[in-house]
């Protein structure tokens, strides 16, 4: 069997669906078996993901593991899959995070509106869609996954969350649908344009030439349809207000998938669709987008500092981080783009660590208000350390993974947009504040009455959190494996844009 030519992508998308089908045959009362099957499936998918990464040839740019079958020939729509380095690392992140979420949230399905079976079926279906959305090379197929992903998440938030879960779920759904509709309009536009100027197709590689024939006005309009959808998803200021509500109401595991994976679809889409399909329009809107990104960085940081609820705090830090990612993407330098892609991967894990540990804390204290904690370091040292390390990663301490990506983004932006990079760098001081303030309130100081007997992490929780922290530390010291996968793809995207990295301004002669 030739491993490099296997249909890895279809296989990895099929496995979770098979798992879901298996769940359907399990009696409703057998919760443990349900969980075991879900876990086994996600672990299997993770293994497939790792094997796929190993078989990925990172010396060749362009799409690999390509598959294409006609789906709706009348409209030129294909079931077309393929990954470049950027998509691959995001798929890898998704399939690694899902089993961790299942382990960490072993009891999350309790207290939900529906049974554990529904919960894990939703997670597995979501995993299929997460892979599909990153692997699609057909714009229409991408759109289908992009919108269909909302359904399981809607039910996960609305059915299994806490607090005002129904309202948060509806808010999330409406926001996303609004963006999705704009994108749909743009996709119809693409279809019309591609029909008018040649063969009707949704193939991303063919469509990359479309911008040379359509009018700049049309390009701008189509670009905006995509960009607004992605900016809502990412989320970029000022389209961010759904995120804190959704993150607060969702279960920690759902929040991890929501912030760690789903939001990445927004920034991934910016690279794959906005930059590739509409390079001229991207250039036109870059100043605006960079401005929004810088605002997001500082705004998210300030709101995180002011947050009283630990889940909302993490959501706001993510808004700040997504500002960095967006800024790196539109800086149009290889450092910026590689850094942004690496940032997506790293953010997935550092946010996962934060959310999972926050979830453990909330589970014990039955409250998510930061001031209800206090002195946890003496009571539950392992939990406190996990939170602290996750926090350090979030504030991009050198030696932890986020630093490499954040610094690449800043350096890459600085070579082209120095002012934006300088303002964004102030975010690192704010990051110190928004992490150390909750660390001080929750972990340090005298132990708050009522917290003296909180239990430390259980073995299952340690098993969930340990690989996340290991990845955070390992990639901080040795990011090369991922950078080697990302770099060729990033270089390709940048050169497709007609950009080259700015040369050092002072390197030779006065």
């Amino acid at each position, binding site marked *: 069997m030739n491993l490099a030519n296997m249909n890895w992508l279809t296989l990895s998308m099929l496995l979770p669906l098979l798992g879901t089908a298996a769940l359907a045959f399990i009696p409703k009362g057998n919760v443990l078996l349900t969980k075991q099957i879900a876990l086994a499936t996600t672990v299997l998918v993770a293994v497939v993901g790792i094997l796929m990464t190993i078989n990925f040839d990172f010396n060749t740019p362009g799409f690999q593991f390509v598959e294409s079958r006609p789906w709706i020939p009348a409209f030129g729509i294909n079931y077309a899959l393929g990954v470049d380095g950027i998509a691959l690392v995001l798929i890898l992140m998704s399939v690694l995070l899902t089993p961790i979420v299942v382990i960490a949230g072993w009891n999350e399905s309790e207290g939900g509106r529906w049974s554990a079976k529904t919960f894990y079926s939703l997670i597995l279906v979501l995993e299929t869609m997460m892979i599909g959305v990153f692997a699609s090379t057909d714009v229409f197929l991408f759109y289908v996954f992009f919108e269909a992903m909302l359904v399981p998440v809607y039910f996960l938030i609305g059915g299994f969350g806490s607090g005002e879960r129904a309202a948060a779920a509806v*808010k999330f759904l*409406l*926001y996303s649908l609004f963006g999705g509709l704009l994108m749909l309009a743009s996709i119809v536009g693409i279809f019309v344009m591609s029909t008018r100027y040649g063969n009707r197709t949704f193939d991303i590689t063919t469509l990359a030439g479309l911008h040379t024939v359509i009018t700049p006005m049309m390009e701008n309009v189509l670009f905006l349809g995509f960009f607004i959808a992605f900016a809502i998803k990412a989320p970029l200021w*000022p389209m*961010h*207000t759904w995120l804190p509500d959704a993150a607060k109401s969702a279960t920690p595991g759902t929040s991890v998938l929501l912030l760690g994976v789903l939001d990445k679809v927004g920034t991934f889409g910016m690279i794959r669709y906005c930059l590739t399909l509409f390079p001229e329009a991207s250039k036109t809107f870059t100043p605006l987008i960079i401005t929004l990104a810088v605002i997001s960085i500082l*705004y998210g940081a*300030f*709101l995180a*500092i*002011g*947050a009283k609820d630990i889940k909302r705090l993490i959501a706001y830090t993510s808004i700040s981080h997504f500002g960095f990612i967006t800024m790196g993407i539109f800086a149009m330098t*290889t*450092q910026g783009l*590689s850094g942004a892609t690496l940032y997506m991967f790293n953010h997935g894990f550092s946010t996962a660590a934060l959310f999972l540990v926050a979830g453990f804390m909330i589970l014990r204290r039955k409250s998510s208000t930061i001031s209800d904690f206090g*002195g946890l370091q003496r009571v539950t*040292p392992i939990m406190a350390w996990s939170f602290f390390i996750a926090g*350090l990663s979030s504030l991009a*301490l*050198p*030696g932890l993974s986020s*630093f*490499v990506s954040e*610094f*690449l983004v800043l*350096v*890459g932006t*600085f070579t082209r947009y*120095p002012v934006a*990079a*300088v303002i964004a*760098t102030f975010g*690192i*001081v704010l990051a*110190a*504040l928004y992490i*150390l*303030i909750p*660390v*001080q309130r929750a*972990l*340090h*100081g*005298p*132990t708050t009455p009522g917290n003296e007997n909180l239990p430390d992490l259980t073995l299952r929780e340690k098993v969930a959190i340990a690989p996340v922290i290991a990845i955070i530390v390992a990639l901080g*010291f040795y*990011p*090369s494996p991922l*950078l080697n996968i990302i*770099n060729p793809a*990033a270089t390709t995207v940048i050169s497709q844009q007609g950009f080259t*990295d*700015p*040369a*050092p*301004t*002072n*390197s*030779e002669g*006065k």
Partner: protein
Amino acid sequence: MVTNSGLVYLIALPLFGAVSLLLLGRRADKWGHLLATALSAGSFAVGLFQLSQMLGRDVESRPVTQKLFTWISVGSFNVDASLLLDQLSISFVLLITGVGTLIHIYSISYMAHDPDRRRFFAYLNLFIAAMLLLVLGDSYLNLYVGWEGVGLASYLLIGFWNQKAAYATASKKAFVMNRIGDMGLSFAIMIAFASLGTVSFSGVKEKAEFASEATMTALGIMLLIAAVGKSAQFPLQAWLGDAMAGPTPVSALIHAATMVTAGVYLIVRSNFVFDAAPNAQLLVAIIGAITLIFGALIGTAKDDIKKALAASTMSQIGYMILGAGLGPAGYAYAIMHLITHGFFKAGMFLGAGSVMHGMNDEVNMRKYGALRKFMPITFVTFGLGYLAIIGVPPFAGFYSKDMLIETALNAGGVKGILLGGTALLGAGITAFYMTRVMILTFTSPKRWDDNQRPHESPALMWIPMAILAVGSVISGYLLHQGKAFKHWLEPLFAKPGEHSELLPPIVVSGLALTMVAIGVAIAVVKYQLSEVDSVAPENVTEFTHFARRDLLQDEINEALFMRPGQAITSALVKIDQSVIDGAVRGIGQMAIGSGSSLRKSQTGFVRSYAALILVGAAALIAAIWVVTQ
């Protein structure tokens, strides 16, 4: 350049200690401190071995490097994780591991009764590893890792007893203010990459001659900001006093001997940048001069022995920064003062820890007095450090400080006179406040309560103090003998320009000693020969009030940054809720509102619906009729 595969062990040993002690947890409680101390000593031994190797080579081939692996490589941005050991870094390596090991030994006894002693030693080892990475990194980005690593270790150690809310706040303050400095270092790296295309020391040095002066000035100022944050220089000095919340050995190691001097290292390491940017260099000297007076003035009013010493540290680092700002003539002396200061200040901090140990952790010097009789060894070691810091010949501080003052005076013109004069004035104030500490603690009449039982500390504590005291006595003489240290570092720096001597060296020494004598005399009159209250008197001059409140540094920071920051935060929280989310909810409200107003037309009366249908149909027919006509 020569490669050497042994450099990594310098860092690997303490790093292994930190990681294993933290991971093993309580299982390592019994022997953790021993392992940590042994690993620190091992690192010192590797350092000595490297020194002997280095001495065996001729001057050109003394620097050695070791490439560990490719760290970050994207496009033209390539940074290897590699280490560089040259004459400058070996000096630091020996200081860090040497003083560090002594402080490890001291802490075994000092922290013996703390249930978390293992954790303390893990942090100490973490600090040593990070600090070694800082001085061994061969590029600004590698240095940055160590730079923030020591910040983290400092945060953890200041907040070691973070169950006390004030200590937790102090550690957070230190980290955040350090981060402001770190931002400067980030900018410096970005500027270096964007304009020179490299971030390694050798690369920047090579390209420095091609770069415009504006670029180099910007680079220099950013490096200065970094140094200011890490070394507690004006205007980012406010965290150092609060950092005394940490256990005293930490204050000795991190906040006196090593970490806070990293700024000096950075500037001296970047000598090629500052030599190409005279304005940035002048700014360095000015910042140093301001801080040396600022710290000294705070030192005159502090009653907390550790805070008095912290103010003194700030001031002494001011001297070093001043020296580093004097260009090639001053670099070597800045580092020399750094090393002698490492000995005497660490010794004095350990002495202060010893006093606290014997006095039930009392830190207020007004509750001390007459401890000479009860703690003779501490008195002697502290006293030797005291003689060194005020610059009495032939103790260490005399040589290093004297050379700094002399170099400052010879810097030429008004600049030289102002900087040199400031340094001289600082020497006088230093003599005053250090004599005050000495008198209040050891020689004035006793002012402590009767339930205190002052006693000498155990051998494990006083032996490190004694070794450091010996260093305080002889290190200056040894380093200055035949200008040995200057010649040792010289190959790394550009040749200093010729300067005419403003005053002959002997006159400068005379002036400095006169200032010292005046300072000592005032302190003796004020504290030895007159009664000292055991509570701080309130009827003092306005200036003393200011100095007690650290010359209002916290008030200024709060007014300028903290409160506006809090105001912005709470304003943005409100805006996010009301304006942005309000707009979103407004759209939802609009949909609901329009629905409920349209709903009113649905009366439920079948006949009105029928009438409406009739009217509608008629209207439709009429419309069709009109159109088709």
